[in-house]
């Protein structure tokens, strides 16, 4: 990805993030983007890079919209004209939000839309693996329980035989004790 380095002139690189609703018709969208470009053209700004994120859900509804389109623009321009651009962007119709940020020196541009999608995929796979592990754990538990039950039943089966033996033993003991020849 390219790094942004300011030119030695009196210009500064700015990062514009623009948010507009996703349910606009194509004509409206184009007019909006054109309007933004015109504003920049008026201020004699130079567009360096553009990163359109496309449709993305919002964390909270803005002007009753739950989905929006994000566009990130990197623009090099005179810092005295920023205030005017900010004012004009606020007036533009069909604009939900915009943000102007001065990125740090030698800022490396990364396409966050791709990164976000990758992260979503990774999270899905992580969730799936967790589910599979839990299923395995449950299966193991069931098998162990079954084994324990089998053991218990076996023990129960054995138990009466042992009691019988005990009865025999007690009988023998009684016989021994009752034997007069021992002189107890």
């Amino acid at each position: 990805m390219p790094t942004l380095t300011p030119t030695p002139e009196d210009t500064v690189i700015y990062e514009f993030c623009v948010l507009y609703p996703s349910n606009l018709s194509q004509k409206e969208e184009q007019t909006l983007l054109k309007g933004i470009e015109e504003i920049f053209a008026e201020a004699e700004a130079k567009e360096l890079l553009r990163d359109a994120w496309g449709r993305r859900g919002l964390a909270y509804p803005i002007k009753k919209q739950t989905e929006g389109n994000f566009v990130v623009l990197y623009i090099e321009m005179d810092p005295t004209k920023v205030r005017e651009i900010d004012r004009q962007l606020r007036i533009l119709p069909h604009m939900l939000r915009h943000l102007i940020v001065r990125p740090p020196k030698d800022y490396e541009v990364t396409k966050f839309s791709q990164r976000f999608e990758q992260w979503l995929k990774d999270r899905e796979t992580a969730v799936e693996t967790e589910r599979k592990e839990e299923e395995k754990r449950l299966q193991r538990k069931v098998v162990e329980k079954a084994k324990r039950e089998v053991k218990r039943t076996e023990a129960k089966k054995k138990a009466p035989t042992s009691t019988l033996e005990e009865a025999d033993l007690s009988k023998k003991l009684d016989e021994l004790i009752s034997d007069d020849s021992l002189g107890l």
Partner: protein
Amino acid sequence: MKYRKQQQQQRSDPKLKKCPFCLKETKYIDYKDYPTMKPFVDYFGNIMKRYYSGVCLKHQKMLRNAIERARFMGMMAYRK
């Protein structure tokens, strides 16, 4: 017995925690980078205290800045 109970309840020293951003030597936290900011926000959307997350003051300030920007742009929730 009492001594043992006390020992069990002791938590790890928060001073021993290391800043995850310092380990990576991050110089700037981007407000568009949702995956890196997400672990420092709790279920209700509040930014986690430094005491619990172990982030150093320098990076906590950067993180707060980034999260507030992301909230403004609708990428993150103010309150769930």
